[in-house]
């Protein structure tokens, strides 16, 4: 690996040569399995994956996946994906051309009288407290993967019970998308 190319949204678990593929698929049973199976049998790596109904029609879903373009040429990943009959369109978004967001939810054990440090972290990171009880607080951040990384790092000082991230979704910045 040579000099890493700088871009927004580096996460700890993501090496520098990742790419975001926004994949429009038919909303049919087993389609996610076909996509995941293709990656498994061809030895392609997926870092994160998010699926939801697509904007245009109930017939389609959108899979946003972060793939490793270091171990396999991106061209091979895109072309093999494109051969799946249920895959309708693939948009390859270079990280620098992407607007990316991710959701983080974390539940932290904390007693009522000692919540100030956590409240500060939450306030400074732009997160929100979404659930509270006597012994814990649940915080949420919807932000860039980098902001989620930062918050995750800061929460290490606390007694975190659970922390989940959704994996990112992304749209191309206007005028920068390339379709396959």
């Amino acid at each position, binding site marked *: 690996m040579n000099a890493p190319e700088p871009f927004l949204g580096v996460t700890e678990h993501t090496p520098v040569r990742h790419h975001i593929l926004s994949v429009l698929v038919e909303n049919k049973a087993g389609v996610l399995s076909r996509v995941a199976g293709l990656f498994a049998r061809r030895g392609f790596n997926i870092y994160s994956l998010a699926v939801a109904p697509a904007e245009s029609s109930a017939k389609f879903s959108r899979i946003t996946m972060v793939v490793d373009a270091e171990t396999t040429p991106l061209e091979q990943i895109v072309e093999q994906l494109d051969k799946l*009959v249920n895959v309708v369109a693939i948009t390859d978004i270079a990280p620098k051309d992407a607007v990316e967001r991710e959701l983080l939810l974390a539940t932290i054990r904390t007693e009522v009288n000692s919540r100030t440090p956590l409240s500060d972290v939450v306030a400074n990171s732009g997160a929100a407290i979404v659930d509270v009880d006597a012994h814990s607080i649940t915080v949420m951040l919807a932000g860039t993967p980098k902001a989620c990384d930062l918050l995750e790092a800061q929460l290490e000082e606390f007694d975190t019970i659970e922390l989940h991230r959704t994996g990112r979704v992304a749209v191309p910045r206007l005028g920068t998308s390339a379709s396959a």
Partner: protein
Amino acid sequence: MQLTGAQALIKSLETEGVEVVFGLPGGAILPVYDPIIDSSIRHILVRHEQGAGHMAEGYALATGKPGVAIVTSGPGATNIVTPIANAYMDSTPLVVITGQVASGSIGTDAFQECDITGITQGITKHNFLIRSAHDIPRAVAAAFYIATTGRPGPVLVDLPKDIAQSTMEWWYPSSVEELDLPGYRPLVDLDLERIAEAAELIAASERPVLYVGGGTLKSRASAQLLAFAERTGIPVVTTLMARGAFPDSHRQHLGMPGMHGMYAAVTAMQKADLLISLGARFDDRVTGKIPAFAPLAKIIHVDIDKAEFNKVRRVDVAVRSSIDRALEALDATGVVAQDLEVWWKEIDTWRETYPLVYDESDDEKLLRPQLVVESIYKASAPGTIVSSGVGQHQMWASQFWGFEEPGTWINSGGAGTMGFGVPAAIGAKVGRPDRTVWCIDGDGCFQMTAQELVTARSEGIPVKIAILNNAYLGMVRQWQEMFYEERYSEVYLDADLPDYVKWAESMGCVGLRARTVAEMHEAIRIANDINDVPVVIDFRTDSSEKVFPMVAAGASNDDIMVHPSQREK
């Protein structure tokens, strides 16, 4: 018109022009077998579902039409997984119908249930699990459309029993739009700019080679290939999957490249300054060690499947197109290469120095397998179709048979499926009853699928099987001899067990045995004279014979090993 799902399935197959299906009934597919009685479609009852799949492949390879197989759920479906994988590797158009347990039982581990769409996801071009009887025509039409367009391949349709039994109002899709395949776009416009770039590379080349792969046969481009090759004078090699795409007797044909390819074909590719790849995929059996493959060559890669570009080898010009259209467009440019006289002189020297050879037969010893293949070839009518299993006999068949036209070589290339030969020969004979069909088989392969000769006899399909019986799993033995210090591990089979003649006779075939050259010629003559029942000949061949030339696995094609008698040159 109200039909049951089962009737709709059969009517859909009829609508697609299916003339013959290969299959074996069972519980979940039972409803489908009832309307078969009343159908115009010929059903061939196999003895094992793997046989149905390979027969459908043999039929497809011999006719160019899609092969169709029908099997039941569970073990019926898993038994046809090998042919599906084989067809996927060799891009053979296949439609496989599997029965499935009733919709309500799916996911409950019901009797003879298995997730066949899940199992075959990675080895089909696409598959369908039908959810309602109304969808049957669309699924069948889509299956044929997908199997036969673009890069062909196998498509599986899984039909739950309750859906086969339910009723629907008959309809059939009348256009591609009605197939509802928004993600499948096999047809592309030929990019003439790419053709112009390819023509520029050809015009500049001094040592070009036409590297012809199976895609040339799939797109029926033999006539265009012949025209282009003859007009430009460029040398031609045909891969194992492309044998018959260009006449072996043609002066410009250097033969098969690759691991057991002709010396001149392998070496011409190594020394070429331009490879024009036509529906080939730079398979490891052709390239040898990839970094050392054709190091001086620029690459023009013509393929209908754009995922093949840059997969193994960086290409200089990628032309996404069927081979026939690309060749027509290239020919229309009128392009010619540089003067090829020097190139041809070099090539002719390789051809003269290292032709295919084998030691002469000697009646004190067992038969030379190469002589058996050559003798059958010489004794058989032009246009005879040959199938093979996988191993030494397959390589000798490819080397010593002369292929002159498409559809005459039926073999398992990418998957290397032992046992392919007998059922594939039967399927080919069903598709081309006018042709003589020989199967060059090995004793190991024969034992895997020989039961289908019962099918052949009972259905009146007179194929001819030549077993090159060397009592070994020969190709493995060859590798153990050459690379494992002659430590033979689990490769001995015994020439007399089973008794192949008795076995053939018990299956209603004529069984013959040949140990000497005279017996060999006589057996071949008898076999060629029999046209009503299958014939099996047990040729006793020399197990010490090895396939040459050979490039060891992982070695550079520069390190090709020729026949021992040629090594001092």
